[in-house]
């Protein structure tokens, strides 16, 4: 009766097309962003129009002079203008009766800092697009500076350790929650250790973007920026989920749901000892970060309980 048993879909079942990216792209060894780009492209399909900015992904996505490392239609713009540029494209396509899926693909610096206003504006207007934030918790392309996605305690080049400093003194913005509060059709978190979960969310986002704004916040470690071994990116993603540091959830048409429930969450020290930028944290500091993580998780659970 093996054939009658319902097989759970695997990642490759979601793929729409061959990899649209060239081999040997200009990203670091073990870069989670590269996997993210190729994955988004394969699940959403080669026809989607990508919109991006100067960032780590820019050398690959923008291309150079007349050549690029991929086959997607692509619109590069200023960091302040991703969601607004995507609006210009989608509104024109709407007017001209052209069917298209426009996907913004930016880092946390653009989404959460300098491009935050325009993202919030597009969400409020419920513009028909998918916005994917690959959150590597800082400005990695410019040399590992802190952003509002950088967690408490992290050492970056603008929150360095020193006699008078123990790293970043404030918490990261809870960005996916902020976008969820715009009451857009679809918001989700995802990461690269849980690809089936991510793929399902991309499919949902693509459908939701026909009606309005869809947002996916992707936890995306950076090998040199976080000082982790080049073979550890996926392991870090997995531990971030298992410690509830980065819970996987979605809000679909007002219904909140944790999509990957962790039975016995590991202590946060499992993550901080793996990640170089957090390894200096002492017991009290880890406890403080743990308290932030626990608080945010309880807020999420409460929302899921109330509106699940």
């Amino acid at each position: 009766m093996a054939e009658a048993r319902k097989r759970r879909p695997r990642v490759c079942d979601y793929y729409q097309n061959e990899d649209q990216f060239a081999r040997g792209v200009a990203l670091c060894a073990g870069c989670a962003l590269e996997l993210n780009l190729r994955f988004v492209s394969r699940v959403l399909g080669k026809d989607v129009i990508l919109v991006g900015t100067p960032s780590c992904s820019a050398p690959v996505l923008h291309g150079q002079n007349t050549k690029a490392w991929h086959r997607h239609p692509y619109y590069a713009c200023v960091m302040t203008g991703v969601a607004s540029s995507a609006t210009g494209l989608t509104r024109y396509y709407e007017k001209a009766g052209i069917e298209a899926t426009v996907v913004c693909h930016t880092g946390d610096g653009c989404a959460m800092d300098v491009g935050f206003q325009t993202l919030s504006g597009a969400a409020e207007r419920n513009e028909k697009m998918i916005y994917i934030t690959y959150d590597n918790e800082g400005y990695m392309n410019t040399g590992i500076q802190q952003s509002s996605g950088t967690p408490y305690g992290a050492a970056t080049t603008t929150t360095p350790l020193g006699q008078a400093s123990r790293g970043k003194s404030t918490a990261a913005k809870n960005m996916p929650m902020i976008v969820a509060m715009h009451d857009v059709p679809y918001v989700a978190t995802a990461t690269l250790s849980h690809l089936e979960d991510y793929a399902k969310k991309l499919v949902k986002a693509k459908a939701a973007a026909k009606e309005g704004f869809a947002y996916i916040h992707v936890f995306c470690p950076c090998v040199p920026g976080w000082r982790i071994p080049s073979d550890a990116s996926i392991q870090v993603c997995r531990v971030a989920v298992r410690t509830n540091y980065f819970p996987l959830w979605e809000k679909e048409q007002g219904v909140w749901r944790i999509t990957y429930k962790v039975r016995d969450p590991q202590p946060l020290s499992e993550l901080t000892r793996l990640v170089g930028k957090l390894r200096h944290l002492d017991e009290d500091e880890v406890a403080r970060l743990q308290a932030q993580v626990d608080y945010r998780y309880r807020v999420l659970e409460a929302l899921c309980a109330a509106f699940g």
Partner: protein
Amino acid sequence: MAVSLDRQRKVITGNAAAAYAAMLCRPDVVAAYPITPQSEVVEQLAKFHADGWLDCEYVTVEGENSAQNVVCAATMAGGRAFTATSSYGLVYMYDAMFNTAGYRAPVVMVNVNREPPGIHAVCAGQQDMISVRDTGWVQLVVENCQEILDTVIMAFRLAEDFEIQLPVMVNYDGYYLSFLAESVDIPGIAEVDRYLEVLKSQPRRPRLLPGQAVGCGSHGIGTGYVELRKKHMAAMERVKSKLEEIEEEFAAMFGRKYGGQIEEYRTDDAEILLVTSGSAVGTARTVIDAKRAEGINVGLVKLRLFRPFPRERLSEVLRGRKAIGVLDRSICFGWDCGPLYMEIRALTPEVGIVPMLSFIDGLANMDITKEHIGQMIDAIVSAAQKKSYRQVTWLP
């Protein structure tokens, strides 16, 4: 306001004239953020849209930076797009303006001139437009409500012309023109369609569409960058003759013309000249007439095209005069004079060494009065008589 798309004559404000012109050109996408003294343009277009006269996507953006990015992307996808701003809004879209120009995106934008941030003057002044002169946009400056309407229509022809492909900004003085109501001849939409029709027969630029392996905004490195910059520069130079060409066609269809890059007023036998732009030109004409009646051979040059700078035509008209005065409604830090004056002084090799006087007037809504312009002309006359003169004069 009762709206009609047939030819009509109405008493409307400068802002309404800009909105009417934009509507008549059938933009696919309009995105704009309100700011004094431009707000009426945004409101008027929203009303046209709400009433079904204007069939476009109207994007109520959350700031001017987004407005600029929306219209830039819309034109790169193949649409016609319009936005309007002023002062703080203009400088808030500064990075995006470089982007629009660099993409050669044929956006048309109205900028209602107002003093920029710092000393918070909610007042007229051309400093905003001067501050963006190196972004690579075509910049026109107009004098009255009719010229606002006509120039916005011409701006779409100019921006989208296949030989140009550049964003065009139409500037007019806030307060003096934005809220001034004048009788304006509004063309019918069918006539405007006919005027813009030639664009459809031109080769079509590449568009960003789904399913194509095309990119927009590649890294230009080394020679790739230089090539695009040189092409942009060459397109800028072509604007000068193209503007005069499309204005001839406009004149043939609508019966109005403005001289193309510059308009000369009583310059033929003039020994001295005053150069200025914007709403001050009307006052200056009256004073020139009065001074002529007194026997002073003075002429007026109205600058319509600020970027590209009409070097050739200005050199021609300025050459052989005894003295030249330039009236600016803005200042040029670091040169201690007016910006137009500074640029006109750079024509000295072509014009010859004659006294050149800079007049700074009309900052922050101060009226450029007939008396002020009379004083300017007296000063130019005196300098022409080889008497000592002040190079820069702030009025009053």
